[in-house]
């Protein structure tokens, strides 16, 4: 028996189909990643599995039983979803985490212990009385994860759990995901557009594109095959496909087009996909002498503000997403159109 199963599930809003005839089996105790660009239908599948959205057609089987979406109050107790956009109740951290337990009528003494344990898991010990709204974005997301974990549901759904987090918080969250799966055997489905995360964390990957699942398999198989789907997936930030040539220095040079050639530490010949984590890219206002093998000159074409970090898109021929702290952003006096240099090490480039 599967933990959950989607049979020919379609979801449409008006005449816009966001999930199209999806068939997917989720194994008991696995971490499954839904990998795909924004708008590929990942979040909608998670919402249907959290039973807060109903499919337009098709059926969802949850632990062997067909889900009746007109009566989801009970089945909702067995599945929980952590949203991409962190949402916390405007009350204390403790009340936030205890919310679902109160609904499940857990006695106060047990509840307090459970809240403490959950906080310890996400490394927020002693945060009980703090106002959740006054925490940093990363801490709020960890509260949101603790709030979901404390319920010990059979299914844990995570929508881009680390998308807006700095490396430290992202690391903690990834560690927690891995740990609860290993220790409690919780079945986890996470949506991500981060190829690097998808390569390391999950047991299986389902590639999604335009509402359809195009491929399902183990990360090594999916990435190893370098399918057409995966290559088309290059629309995702900092993922490029190109031609790779091995150099005499035992590195490779990948031509990703528009005159941009990236040096990578792997040796690979022929067609390849590379991915650079936005956090691994250094931004400078002038050329620098460093050990970084890759340095490109470009222009800022987009600025997005989120919490303590600022996301920039830099056009160097190809567009790179770069992530810097708000403080650096202010100090460097950056603007749209500012001329900048980006630099990253050959070893920071993930080659698929």
């Amino acid at each position, binding site marked *: 028996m599967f933990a959950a199963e989607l049979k020919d599930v379609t979801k449409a809003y008006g005449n816009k189909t966001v999930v199209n005839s999806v068939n997917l089996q989720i194994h008991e105790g696995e971490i499954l990643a839904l990998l795909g660009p924004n708008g590929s239908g990942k979040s909608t599948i998670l919402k249907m599995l959290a039973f807060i959205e109903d499919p337009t057609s098709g059926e969802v089987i949850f632990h062997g039983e067909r889900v009746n979406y007109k009566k989801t109050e009970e089945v909702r107790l067995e599945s929980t979803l952590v949203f991409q956009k962190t949402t916390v109740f405007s009350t204390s951290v403790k009340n936030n985490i205890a919310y679902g337990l109160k609904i499940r009528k857990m006695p*106060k003494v047990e509840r307090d212990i459970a809240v403490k344990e959950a906080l310890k898991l996400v490394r927020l010990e002693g945060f009980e009385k703090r106002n959740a709204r006054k925490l940093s974005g990363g801490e709020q997301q960890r509260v949101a994860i603790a709030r979901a974990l404390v319920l010990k549901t059979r299914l844990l759904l995570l929508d881009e759990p680390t998308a807006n987090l700095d490396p430290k918080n992202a690391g903690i969250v990834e560690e927690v995901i891995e740990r609860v799966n290993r220790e409690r055997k919780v079945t986890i489905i996470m949506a991500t557009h981060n190829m690097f995360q998808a390569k390391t964390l999950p047991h299986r990957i389902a590639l999604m594109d335009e509402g359809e699942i195009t491929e399902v398999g183990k990360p090594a198989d999916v990435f190893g095959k370098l399918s057409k789907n995966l290559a088309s997936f290059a629309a995702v930030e900092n993922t490029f496909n190109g031609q790779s040539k091995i150099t005499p220095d035992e590195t490779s040079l990948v031509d990703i087009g528009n005159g941009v050639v990236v040096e990578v530490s792997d040796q690979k010949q022929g067609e390849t996909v590379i991915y650079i984590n936005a956090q691994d890219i250094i931004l400078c206002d002038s050329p620098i002498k460093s050990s970084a093998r890759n340095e490109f000159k470009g222009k800022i074409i987009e600025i997005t503000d989120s919490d303590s970090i600022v996301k920039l898109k830099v056009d160097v021929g190809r567009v790179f997403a770069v992530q810097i702290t708000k403080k650096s952003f202010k100090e460097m006096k950056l603007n749209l159109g500012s001329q900048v240099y980006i630099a990253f090490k050959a070893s920071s480039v993930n080659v698929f």
Partner: protein
Amino acid sequence: MADIIGGIIEAFQLIITGDPDIQGIVFRSLFFSGTAVILAILWGTPLALLIAMKEFRGKTVIKTFLNAMIALPTVVLGLILFLIFSRGGPLGNLGLLYTPAAIILGQAILITPVLVSIGVASIESVDPEIMNLSKTLGASESQSQIAVLKEAANGIILSDIASFNRAIGELGVVLLVGGNIAGVGNRTDVLTTSISRSVQIGEIGSAIALGVILIVIVFAINIIVVIMRRANYLVELAKGPFARFKRSNKEDNE
């Protein structure tokens, strides 16, 4: 000028000595307006929830109508209610005209648009994901609505206070449907109507005393709200009734 100074001196004498007549008027004002607010909360809060959370045809029309109703002159509403409650009116046989019940009902109707409009605005300003969030944590439909209400608590309390201020300070409705009956029996004279009468019969001292009391009541309530808000008591207070309700519910062991 001497009249005014004399009036002020008399006013303080009346307040300090605790004149029973004035005490009665103050009590009635607080009681009528307080009851009217409770009534308006009972029907206004579900209405605000409905308007804020459900999509239906004519929603904008209703919201615009409610906003316009806030500006309705109280004396016009008083006249309409007078016509409805008067012997020949549609509800004439209930015999409500010139009774405390008419005042409470009239004030409750008067403040409903204020209460609902501010209530709707504060519920609409709550993060729309709160409803889904509480559901993913296992909440039922009604539990998730309560979660939204809790998030809107500050605005909802503000709407209740604004409603009370409007009720206790208005003259038109209480005068026309209450009749400002003094003396014995079912008195319907309140602070505003008594000020009006005192001025008419030349009792400037009483008028000033009542005016001072009215201002003190309104200011005091608003100051208390500001202080409590700063101390964030309000939110906890708003959660109090739910928490107490849950405590009386045996299933919860809080």
